[in-house]
Structures are given as structure tokens and as C-alpha cells.
């Protein structure tokens, strides 16, 4: 489904070149809920931005359902972002002037789709994530958790091949974080959604099928959830301790 192969990415500041991603390889399978974890500066957000086509990359290839993203034009990239990818951001990125219902509709509004199908789909997603009662509220009138659930609903509006979530629980308290993670799980179960989530939050990551650990711009290790969430959480914490040189996991 989503393949990242030998990805290299660097930034130049003056004469100094910083290598951010160094030969990153991994794959996310259809219907999988995967997470990327790592310390600050490990390159996880840069990698997500490359997949999102927000940043170009130096070498390697990212393929989405067989389509090489690096070969697409600006307009084709916009189309991929709109139709084949769904986004969930740390700061929600809901449009303040639109109601929750209207915000959820936005991806289809951009696509210029028929309003009847759009309204039907938006209603269904709002019900799925238990936020239909706030459909007519504006972002300023709802909680952070509700905002992020609305953002998850929005990301699913065009039935994307994959949802890319950048620290979706970063701005939320633990209760709201759990509600948002449950929304991702619900999307996977009900709609078969594929999700790649970048996170610092070990607790949230413990709900994923697989966690990719990054360190210094490389994939350090991968952990697979065998169905026991608590054991998986322990494993994650162990790996993180090792990653951080034995220090206490600040993300836990």
C-alpha cells in the first residue's frame, strides 16, 4: 500500500548540509494502523512531510498503491493529497468560520463533488465518531478531543488509501487522546482505513498494530503488536529506554 524505499532527505543551511533521513525503508500494509516513534530530531515528522508531499526528497522513492509520488506534477500532487491521502494534524487545522459538519465536508468541497453524496457521507462519519450532536457547532465552541475527532472524520471523507496523522494527540489530555485513538481504531475496523501516525505518546502507540522506531534519521527497529496491548506498551517503553540511552522515557 504505502512503501518508503531508501529515502534520503537533507537540508542545506549556508554551506552546512544536515542529513535528516538516511536510507529509510518501511512499508504500511492495507488496513494497518502503524505508528512512527522516536526522539525529537529523529526525522519522523520530516518523513511524514515527505510522504505528504509537503517536502521534496533527495533520493529514494515513496509509492502509494504503486504510484511514485516523486514523479507527479504540482496539480497531480494536490489531487493525491485530496483523494488518496487523509490528514490529521496536531493543531487540528479546522477552519474557524465553518461548522463541524462543514469542516468535515471540506475535502469533498475541494473535489467539487455532488452535495447529496457529500452530506450523506459527512453525516455517517459524524455518527461513527460520536460527534453528530456538535455538527452545527463552530470549532471555537467544542473541546480539543471533539476537534480532533472531527479532523479524523474529515480525513476519511474521500475514502483515502491512507491517513497520515502528525502527533494527533499532542495537544490533548489523556481522556481526549484515548477518544481520538478509538476513532482511528473505529476507522480501521469499520472502514478498513490504513493509518500511519507519528507520535511521541507511547500510550497511543500501544493501540497500533506496529510501531516503527526511528533514531538519527534511520529506522532503528520495528515492534509488532501481538494483541496484548499492555505487553506491547511495556515492550515499547523498553525500546524507548534503550533508544534514549537508558534514560527515562519522557514520552511515557
Amino acid at each position: 500500500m504505502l512503501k518508503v524505499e531508501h529515502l534520503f532527505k537533507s537540508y542545506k543551511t549556508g554551506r552546512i548540509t544536515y542529513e535528516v533521513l538516511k536510507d529509510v525503508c518501511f512499508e504500511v500494509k492495507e488496513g494497518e494502523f502503524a505508528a512512527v516513534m522516536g526522539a525529537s530530531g529523529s526525522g519522523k515528522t520530516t518523513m511524514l512531510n515527505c510522504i505528504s508531499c509537503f517536502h521534496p526528497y533527495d533520493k529514494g522513492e515513496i509509492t502509494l498503491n504503486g504510484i511514485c509520488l516523486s514523479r507527479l506534477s504540482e496539480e497531480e500532487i494536490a489531487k493525491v493529497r485530496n483523494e488518496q491521502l487523509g490528514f490529521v494534524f496536531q493543531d487540528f487545522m479546522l477552519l474557524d468560520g465553518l461548522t463541524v459538519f462543514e469542516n468535515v465536508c471540506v475535502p469533498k468541497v475541494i473535489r467539487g463533488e455532488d452535495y447529496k453524496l457529500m452530506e450523506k457521507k459527512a453525516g455517517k462519519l459524524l455518527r461513527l465518531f460520536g460527534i453528530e450532536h456538535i455538527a452545527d457547532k463552530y470549532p471555537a465552541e467544542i473541546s480539543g478531543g471533539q476537534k480532533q475527532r472531527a479532523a479524523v472524520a474529515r480525513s476519511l471523507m474521500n475514502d483515502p488509501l491512507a491517513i497520515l496523522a502528525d502527533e494527533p494527540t499532542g495537544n490533548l489530555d489523556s481522556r481526549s487522546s484515548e477518544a481520538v485513538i478509538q476513532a482511528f481504531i473505529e476507522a480501521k475496523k469499520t472502514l478498513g482505513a490504513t493509518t500511519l501516525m507519528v507520535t511521541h505518546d507511547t500510550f497511543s502507540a500501544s493501540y497500533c498494530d506496529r510501531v516503527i522506531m526511528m533514531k538519527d534519521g534511520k529506522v532503528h527497529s520495528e515492534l509488532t503488536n501481538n494483541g496484548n496491548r499492555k505487553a506491547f506498551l511495556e515492550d515499547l517503553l523498553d525500546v524507548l529506554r534503550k533508544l534514549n540511552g537508558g534514560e527515562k522515557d519522557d514520552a511515557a
Partner: protein
Amino acid sequence: MVVRKMTLLNVLNKLKKYNKGNYKQFSLCFSLSVLLVSALTFFMLSPFVQSRLPSGGDSRKMLYMVYAVAVTGCVLFTIYAAGLFLRFKSREVGILMALGTAKGRLSKTIMKEMLLLIGQLSVVSIFIGGMMAFGFGKLYEYLIQSAEGDGFRLSLPGLAGSVVFVLTVSVMIMGMTARFLKRANLIEILTEERRTEPIKKNVDGKYLVTGLILIALGILGGLIVPSIISTIFKRVLGSFTYVFYILVLIGLYKIMVYSVAVHKRGKNPQKYYKNLISFGMLKFQGVSVVRNMLISTLLLAGAFFAIFYSATNYIQGATIAASEDNDMSYRYLGDADRLTMQDVKSIAAAYGVEITDYREVEIARLLGSGVARENYDEEGMLTEEYREKDYYKNFISAGMFSEATGMEVKVEPGTYLYVNRRNNTENYWFLPEDLDMAENTDTGIKKGLIFAGTVEYSSFFYDRGQDGNASYILNDEDFAELKKGLSNKFQMTQVLFNVSDAGDTYAFSKELYARYCKSVPDSMRVMAAYDEYREGVDAGYDYGGLTTLYPKRPEIEVDWKYSPVFVPLLERSFVLTYATLLLIFVFVSVICLVSAGVIGYTRSITVAVKSKRVLMDVKKLGAGQEYLNRILKEQIKKIFVLPTAAATILMFIYYTMILWQNDGVISSNEYPMIGFNIAVCLIVVLYQYTLYRSSFRKSQMLVFDAGTAVMKKRRERDGERI
């Protein structure tokens, strides 16, 4: 390494360099405003222009009214620019305060900085404004070819006026700055730049309906009802009716709020969703957008009024010249030493002009009766007071009139015809049938007379031909009977003739005007409203002074009962007669248009800056460039479309109604005015469209080019963090 002393002032100076775009925008708006107002004030208050403005009357009143509109426009848009400037400055002020800078110290430094900036800009702008007025004045002087030797010069009152404006605006800006710095809530200051101003009220369709109703009520109460009441019931409602125009303003505000705040799914949901994002974005800046739209509408309305009014004056002037029945017409009282036909012919010969159809018409000035409609009773009803002895009026015999004009008129004994100016509209202050008695005040002979109709002829009077300037045709016998024994001072000779196309008719007319002015005795140097009888009976009579004549400057409109009418002068100089008014009105309209333009432009930039983040978010959600352009365009379009449409439609309808209200019909000589007004509307719409295009282009550059730059910066920053 250069070591700089890091004082607060140095820090602020460094920030000033970094934010030079913000300073540039404020400086431009402030300077433009001061420059325009000082140029206009210098020009208007110059003795050269003042002496050429018609004394009293509607024109001067309208001129000052429009001047007030222009100055208000400039004040509003300067205040707006200052608000914007402070908003952009809020973040750095907030950070400095958060880091522990004492508010008093910061306020003192910023106030000092503002005062210095305003002071420097004011001095430069007043100087340039003065130079502009001087250049404009000299051009005007050249155009009217003044022969009086009083060249255009700048005056102290002009400077004083400009300084007063600067002081007023400066006090307002300093007050705003002080209020801004006084605020206690630090978070509020920090987030001021990003503050959204959504319209919080529940706005629905009722807003639109009440808005339209209020506008209709305003026009009805301010214009139509007073007009109907004064026509039918002859009752003047007084100036309180102007209060109704406030309803128009409120109505406009409501419609604008509706247009920004309400976006309903309605009958076309597809369209609703198509514009969903742009509506949502604009709605969140709703309050300031609506406020701006309203100011723009008022300024555009001011511009329209200034242009329409000056055009009406101009066209009316042209119409008067065209409606004269004789090329040349002037009058002498019986006891005055007059220019003879030979005198006139010899002057004409010097300019190669041939005199044709020279006629002298005998006129008797008899004391006529009339109805005075000058006062109102306690209930505001116009009172009618019949006066057997009203004014000395002009009487001609039917035979003499027929002979002089070539129009065969018959008047039965005991009746009279009233001579009306061509295309003159009737009004209720003076009615032709008011006269029923005429008296020879030398012999005491009186005669009862009955109104028998009206004859149109334009060369027998000055102005509209009412009261003491009214002319009547009597039966030959009645005329002879009344004229018998009339002393010279109550006899008058009306001289009428035409001029050939050959020769310099303009120079001849100018010379004849000068000679005529010099030849008239003091008894003829009286105001248009002067009347010997009324002077004797009215207490505190105001019209007894001598009129100042300008023999070499026929273009000056003088309040003179015996003002001659020379068509070549009118034709060649009516443009110049109205030039002062025209120039100032055009100047004022330019100021209003520029102010409206600057407000529209800066608001577009603000909308663009505020939309940048959201547009980038929408881009991340997969919107292509075309789609993003459309969202931005929709928002900026709204800022221009509604004010332009509202001002154009309202002012066009309003002015057309004023033309209609004058006499209850739109007469044929008013058609060119309506045509001209339509052309003006189209030009202003085109101007606004051009501004909209350039505002959109600039916004596009700002959002998308800057957006790319921001992305680049972010990448570099991310790189640095790794």
C-alpha cells in the same frame, strides 16, 4: 563585530527596520490623507479662488458640504490605517511587556516614536500639498486668463486649515496609541494581530429585509415625503427630515452584515458548498470587513455626489446660454446715461462684429400686488400673505412686446400675460397669477388686472423672473393709462440685439460688459432682490447695499439686478464661471475615490494576510492552486463589489430623484445629466474593478509567494533542529 548599545529605543529601531512594510503602509496612508486635505484647503482658502466662488447660494453650501465629506473620508481612512498599524505592532509590544519592560517606559518610547513619525510626515505632506495646490492654482489662473493681476497665491488660512487637520488627526492617533498601550490584558495584546472578529449576532434573512426597508424608509422620509408635502400641502417639514438619512446608513449596514454573515444552503446547495470556504473565512473577519465596506460606500457616495453636483451645475449653465432668445440683452433705468446704439456699434466695429436686430423696448416699473410666501406658522405651514403693494414689477405693452420679439400676443383689456423664462419650472413661492393690481406710484393711478396666461421669452429679466424681476404684458391701452405721468426713474429700456458670426464676438462682449458696468449709475448697482418699495416698508432691510462690479471679469457671478446677459460671454466663459466649483468638486471626488481605493486595497491585504494560514491548511488538504486562487478571489471580490454596487445604485437613484423632485418631472434638459451620471457610474465601476484586480494580484503574491518562502524557511528550520 559591531557592538551596539542595546537600549529600548535601539531595539525598537531595529524592529522598525524589520517591519518596514508596516511603517510604509501607515506612512503612505497618513501622508496621502494630509497631502490631499492640505492641497484642497490651500486651494479653497486662497483669496484668488475665494473671490471667484459665487457668494452665498447653494453652490457654496454644497461645496463646503462636499469638502466636509472629503475631510471626513480622510480622517476615517487615516484612523483606519493607524488601527492597522497598531495591530501589526501589538505582537512585539506584547513580547517586550511579557519580558518585563515597564509599561510606562514602553509607552513613553512608542508615543515618542509615533509623534516623531507623524510630525515628520505632516511637515513633508503639508509642504507637498501646498506645492500641489500652487501648481493647480497656477493652472487655474492660466485657464481663466485673469486680467485683474491678482495671481494665485497660497494663504495663511490655508496653512492654518491644514495644520488644524493634522493636529486633529494626530490627537486621534495618539489617543488610539495611548489606549492601545494602556490595555492591561497582555494575552490580548499578544494575540491582537491574529484576533478574529466574527459577527456574533444571529443574522438571518430578516437582516436583509429590514435593511432594504430602512433604506426605503430613509429615502422616503428624507426626500420623497418632504417633497410631496411641500408640493401638495405647501408645508415645509424642516431640516429634521435629514435625520431619516440615518436610516439609510443603518439599512446599508444591515445589508452588508447579511452579505458577509449569511450563507445559506438554500435552493442551490451545490453553489453553497462551492463557496463554503471563502464565506467561512470572511465571516471570521466580519466586523472589521463590514465596517470597512460601509466607509468605502460612504466615500464612494461622496465622490458620486461631488461629480453629479458639479456636472448638474455645468449642464444647467450650458442650458441657460442655449435658451436665450437674443444674443445680447441689457437694461437701463430711464434716468441713467446709457450707451447708445452708436456707441455699441462702434465698439462692435472695432472687433469686426456686426450688430443686427437692434431693438429698444420700453418698460414701465409699476408697483404690483402679490402674495408673500416667506414665513411659516407655528405648525410649519407656509403662510400666504396677500399684499396690494408687493414689488415694483416690469410691465410691457402687448404691441411693443410683439414688435420686439416677433411673437404675436393679444391681451384683452383688464388682463395680463406673465413672461416666463423658457424651460423655467414653476414653484410655489411665486405664482404668475398672484398679481391682480398695478399702480403708478407717481400719479397714484391703480388698475385691477386678471391673469390671462403665460408667454415664454428669455431675454427680459435676470435670474428666474420673480418678485421685483417679474415681467408682465398688458393691453396697449391699459399700459398707456398706467404709464401716463410715470417719472424717468420708474421707466426702463430693455436693449436687445444679435451679433453676426463674423468678428471676435467674445472680445466684443467682454469689452461691452466692461463699458456697461462703468456706465451704470449707483441706482442700478443693486442686488437682484433689491426693491425700492420694500426698502421703504420692510424693517431691517438686507438688500440695500451696493453690488461690487468686476468690469474686467465677466466670469464672476455677481448678485446684480441689472446684470446683462451676453450669450457669447456665457458660451465662452460659462465653463470658467463654473470652473472653480468644478475643479474643487472634482478634487473632492478624487480624494473620496482615492480614500475608498486605499481602504479597499489595504483591507484586501489584511484579508490576504489573515487568510494565509488557512489557505496553507486547505492546500495541505489537497486544494490545487486554482482552487486556492478562487477562495482568495471570492473574499477580495466581496470587499469591492458590495460598496461599489451600493454607492453606485443608491447615489444614481438618489440624484435622479432629486432631479425629479425639483419640478415633479424629469425634463428634456435633464436627460444629458442622467446620461452623464450613467457614464460617471461606469467610470467609477471600472476604477473599482481595476483596483480589485491589482489588490487581488498583490494578495496572491503575498499569500502564495510568501507561502512558498515560509515553506522554505520551515524546511531550513527543520534542518537546523535535526
